[in-house]
């Protein structure tokens, strides 16, 4: 008997599935999350997986959250589905007091393997599967559906909704459909007959999901590339970005074939390495196609030579960087926001690049599409800065939306007609004072508008030159162009606290859902903060204004070296003392509890300490 009262909560708890990589559990676990959604209850799931194909531990955590908090909660597991003996001790230790442990009770376990402050629920999963299935693979796969069935009874879920989902998944494959439904009921019936159902944690139907969709950021960004008019994708596989290129391929196959000829209105090449993939992007963009590549930090390192060329020769390029924990190979399957400095100043010499920071899949879709407009308008590299947390986890977000009247912004392209009119074409002439010159596509005109593209210094008419004044003129214009970009990129979004406050917080990207929740937690502790979510680099002038309007500002980010803070200080001449770093960098997604604790503790401190000492 538990010495602790069992947890009791409806539509607000965390379930964690501990499995072995390669056991086929992923689809069953995802089915669980989707089944909760079908009850009208929001979920926030996260894959925690190793950099390995088979055999190592993997976890899938589902935060059931009627309140709709989409960040990771942190603080332990309420219900642990412990299916991996290898991680048993760690999994059991991670259960909150009063929580529940669900396990395969086919083989007896010594009492020392349990805790007395949790409720232990044993289901003889192996015995049930072995008595039902003879095929070893079936035994393994259906065991996952059987535990899902048992959980549905324990959590008081409507089996019809799960059956409906299975029906959609195996539409047209009747044999698979019926065998999965059968397995579901095997587990459910066993639980109903042998266990006290339901437990204290329950799913109750609600109406809190609305019309939101459930999608991975990589998938949404891939759709953004389709809608944004990308026709050339050259990529090299690397976790956690590979699924983005694969999703682009899949969407193009469905959406981008000429109905009459069956021919593809796109070209996708799996390059031999990252150098070649960005090289193809540069070549295609130079020649007037919308092109992009997908990668992660180590890939960005390899691409920096071409990024410098793209910057200096002014060739559009879009790089979708799904960040993972670095440096070097780092932790390939763990999340961080650690490539800001590497991307903002990629390559040698004086360079600055545009970065976009989507907060969720919906923005990943929008920003991916807008990246192509920006790349062509600014004739430079645009980084879409995703991370593993957004990219490889399904997340609830608003439905994807597109304006059918939208035309692509192809930027300043001088046509044959414009050349015929006698327009002066100098490839690097700043005709409008915005730092952005006109370009021509190869093949435009027999005698006018051709030029030689190079990474070496040249004058305004693209003629090779090592004159100091000519070089300075060029790089000054590039800086002017970067300043122009400030007003073209997505602006920061500000949300003020319910009460007037002297303190602010700046954050970006995948931190957003945790921040939304953390603000509520801080308010409950009496701390009020104005918020500014940065959505792009270069920073809009409102970033400096926001900082100026507050005594000091917390900068929340998921890396060790406060890279966003560094960029703000560097680019805006802000006194570093005014920016307090809140840093989370162990590779797991930042949680509301972490943010609230860090900021709350700091706020508590400054309330009893003179401001100057507190921040010095």
């Amino acid at each position, binding site marked *: 008997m538990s010495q602790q009262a069992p947890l009791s909560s409806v539509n607000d708890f965390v379930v964690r599935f501990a499995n072995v990589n390669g056991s086929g559990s992923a689809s069953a676990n995802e089915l669980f999350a989707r089944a909760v959604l079908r009850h009208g209850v929001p979920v926030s799931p996260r894959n925690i997986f190793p950099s390995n194909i088979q055999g190592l531990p993997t976890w899938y955590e589902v935060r059931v959250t009627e309140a709709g908090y989409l960040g990771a909660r942190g603080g332990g597991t309420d219900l642990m589905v412990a299916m991996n003996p290898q991680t048993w001790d760690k999994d059991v230790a991670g259960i909150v007091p009063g929580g529940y442990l669900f396990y395969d009770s086919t083989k007896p376990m010594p009492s020392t393997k349990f805790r007395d402050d949790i409720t232990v629920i044993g289901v003889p999963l192996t015995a049930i599967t072995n008595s039902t299935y003879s095929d070893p693979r079936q035994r393994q796969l259906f065991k996952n559906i059987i535990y899902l069935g048992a959980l549905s009874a324990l959590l008081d879920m409507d089996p019809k909704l799960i059956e409906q989902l299975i029906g959609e998944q195996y539409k047209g494959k009747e044999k698979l459909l019926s065998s999965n439904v059968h397995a579901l009921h095997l587990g459910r019936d066993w639980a109903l007959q042998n266990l006290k159902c339901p437990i204290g944690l329950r799913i109750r139907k609600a109406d809190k999901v609305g019309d939101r969709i459930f999608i991975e950021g990589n998938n949404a960004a891939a759709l953004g590339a389709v*809608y944004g008019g990308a026709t050339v994708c050259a990529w090299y596989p690397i976790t956690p970005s590979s699924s983005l290129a694969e999703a682009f391929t899949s969407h193009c196959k469905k959406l981008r074939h000429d109905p009459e000829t069956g021919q593809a209105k796109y070209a996708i090449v799996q390059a031999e390495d990252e150098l070649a993939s960005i090289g193809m992007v540069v070549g295609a963009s130079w020649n007037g196609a919308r092109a992009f590549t997908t990668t992660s930090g180590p890939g960005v390192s390899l691409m920096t030579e071409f990024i410098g060329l793209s910057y200096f020769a002014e060739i559009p390029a879009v790089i979708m960087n799904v960040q993972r924990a670095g440096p070097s190979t780092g932790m390939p399957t763990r999340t961080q926001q650690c490539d800001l400095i590497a991307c903002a100043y990629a390559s040698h010499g004086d360079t600055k690049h545009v970065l976009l920071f989507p907060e969720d899949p919906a923005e990943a879709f929008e920003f991916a599409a807008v990246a192509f407009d920006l790349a062509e308008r600014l004739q430079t590299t645009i980084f879409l800065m995703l991370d593993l947390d957004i990219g490889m986890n399904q997340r609830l977000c608003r439905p994807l939306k597109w304006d059918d009247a939208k035309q692509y912004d192809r930027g300043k392209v001088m046509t044959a007609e414009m050349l015929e009119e006698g327009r002066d074409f100098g490839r690097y002439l700043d005709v409008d004072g915005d730092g952005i010159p006109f370009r021509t596509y190869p093949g435009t005109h027999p005698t006018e508008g051709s030029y030689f593209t190079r990474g070496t210094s040249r004058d305004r008419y693209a003629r090779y030159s090592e004159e100091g004044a000519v070089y300075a003129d060029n790089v000054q214009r590039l800086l002017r162009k970067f300043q122009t970009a400030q007003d073209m990129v997505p602006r920061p979004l500000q949300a003020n606290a319910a009460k007037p406050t002297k303190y602010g917080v700046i954050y970006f990207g995948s931190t957003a859902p945790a921040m939304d929740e953390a603000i509520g937690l801080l308010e409950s502790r009496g701390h009020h903060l104005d918020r500014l979510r940065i959505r792009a680099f270069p920073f809009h002038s409102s970033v400096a204004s926001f900082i100026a309007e507050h005594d000091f500002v917390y900068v929340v980010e998921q890396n060790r070296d406060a890279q966003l803070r560094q960029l703000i200080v560097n680019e805006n001449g802000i006194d570093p003392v005014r920016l307090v770093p809140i840093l989370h960098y162990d590779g797991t997604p930042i949680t509301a509890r972490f943010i609230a604790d860090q900021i709350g503790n700091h706020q508590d401190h400054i309330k009893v300490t003179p401001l100057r000492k507190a921040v010095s």
Partner: protein
Amino acid sequence: MTYIAKPKFQHPGIKKNTLGYSHRDYEGKISTLCAGCGHDSITASIIEACFELSIEPHRVAKISGIGCSSKTPDYFLGNSHGFNTVHGRMPSVLTGANLANRELIYLGVSGDGDSASIGFGQFAHAIRRGVNMAYIVENNGVYGLTKGQFSATADRGSKSKKGVTNTDNAIDLVGIALQLGATYVARSFSGDKKQLVPIIAGAIQHKGAAFIDVVSPCIAFNNHAGSTKSFDYVREHNDAVNRLDVLTGRDPIEIDQDPGTVQIVEQHDGSRLALRKIDADYDPHDRLGAMTFLQKHAAQGQIVTGLLYVDPEADDLHSHLNTVERPLNRLEAADLCPGQAALDKINASLR
């Protein structure tokens, strides 16, 4: 300014091709390579080939990497767009450019350092993908711009100008190209215009990956050792305030060789090349035969020149990818964007 423009004047009686273009229309800026450089002879052959084919100059995209050879696209087809990319990366940029617009002619110009060393991987992958291009390597066995280090095509046992002996084996790009599936493979000599011009013309007309290795003597680093006119001698005997490199120009090496013969060609440094021009009855449709032929004569110390292999039925990367005939760079939102209706269906499938 270090660039030099050519005067635009043309003699009224100058020879014109079927499009009404003269040779001058295929020229570029004045070369800044050393006088006598084999690369300038290759430039002249490219100009001649394009003139003879009556190509519209602006329909050619000329793309190169870094190095002496990669500077040359500035010296021909002045009305074409050129792209001097980064070292060894010409093939990927050309591949991307080709994907964007399949209607242009793609001329990739590279060197032995550019393609056989730093860019060996990109060279191989562009060839195996069947990119529709004419890929020319101007092969002199040394790094000219950085003053004479060995490239990966330098023969084992050969000596650098500084007297260092090369102990590494040489890479034979032609052999590699054949193995990788290039559908047009040739080798020539920069001074053999009779042979080189039609080879370049054939490569331009070929649909698929066409590769030409052109042996091209370097005046700067194939100089006579011990000559009082040599680079080293001038530097050692020059009391000027700085240590500028002084090069004495030479006439470009030219040869006139009959098919089926072996001709010994003396380079600027006195070293000798045994060039075997393939016979008129050589069958260039046999890939294995070409490889054997190359190996056999290489063992005899001979460099085989000529069109070694061609597949007249070859296809290209666009065929493999089944892309639309209309160039991808001309597709607009109406062609590419599936619209909100398709997005509504996608949204519905994600609930």
